[in-house]
């Protein structure tokens, strides 16, 4: 029981309990929970152009707040999620998307992991294909083992 209490306390201390806190203020929220849910989802996909490593859903920057307001306005106006994302991309370029799209200038970004995996497999295959240099290694192991038993026996005597 106390173990669980300790774990919960630890999680709270590490900020776990606060991870659901967000920058959206109550007065910006939409009264329709379905629409509000959509707004949150879209906001998470949009980068705060001031702080850059946060989404506008997380950011306390004023400009992020203004962007969230526009996202909600467009939802109420009946725009689709894609239309809203495009609205922001038209103004701030693809940079405003937290997840960069697959495009000519992001080819390296998306393909390099696969390239490295193929390269790694290639090198692994290349190295493992090599034949062992000689067979004396086995004999050496036998000798070493023999020597080990000798040493152990000597230690027992002492």
């Amino acid at each position, binding site marked *: 029981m106390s173990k669980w209490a300790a774990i919960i306390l630890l999680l709270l201390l590490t900020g776990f309990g606060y991870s659901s806190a967000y920058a959206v203020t109550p007065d910006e929220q939409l009264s329709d929970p379905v629409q509000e849910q959509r707004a949150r989802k879209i906001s998470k996909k949009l980068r705060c152009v001031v702080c850059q490593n946060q989404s506008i859903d997380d950011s306390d920057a004023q400009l992020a707040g203004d962007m969230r307001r526009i996202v909600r306005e467009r939802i109420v106006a009946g725009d689709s999620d894609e239309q809203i994302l495009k609205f922001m991309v038209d103004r701030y370029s693809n*940079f405003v998307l937290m997840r960069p799209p697959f495009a000519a200038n992001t080819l390296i970004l998306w393909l390099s992991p696969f390239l490295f995996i193929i390269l790694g497999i290639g090198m692994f295959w290349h190295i493992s294909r090599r034949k062992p240099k000689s067979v004396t290694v086995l004999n050496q192991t036998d000798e070493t083992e023999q020597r080990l038993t000798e040493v152990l026996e000597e230690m027992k005597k002492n």
Partner: protein
Amino acid sequence: MKIRPITFLPVIILLGIGIAFAFGLRNDPSKIESTLINKPMPDFVLERVLDDQPALTPADLLGQVSLVNVFGSWCAACVQEHPMLMRLANHEGVAIYGIDSRDTAEAGAAWLEKYGNPYRKVGLDAQSRLAIDLGVTGAPETFLIDKQGRIRFKVIGPITEQIWKQQLKPMMDLLEAES
């Protein structure tokens, strides 16, 4: 043992990545390329900042080469840029228009009272609506507008002597020659 060229491959790849990152670090991440270059100035409706002057309208930006400067009374870098704008307006004859972003009319007017007003006209963009339409990420940002009201160039951050001499002035002279 003979060392084969393939042994060096990981080192060479790592070195390549390192060099790419070293160059990447030199880029200023706050400088996001504008998507609006050569596009018309987005339409806007602004409120007035100064009591004795109507608010900036899209029609004000037609028929001349001008600068549109996004500022705010909360913006520290704008104070730093301000003497430059005053000089351009008063001694170089540049038409500068102001967008007072994320501000109140009172605070904006008080700021212009304190530091001087380089703007032919000012408009209040209280909720960053126009700023977002312009893809603005902070203040100051300055847009170079041609005679047709199209955005031709954008300066992120304060206009420095160097930016004025090497970029803005030559471009404005060129645009001035356009019909």
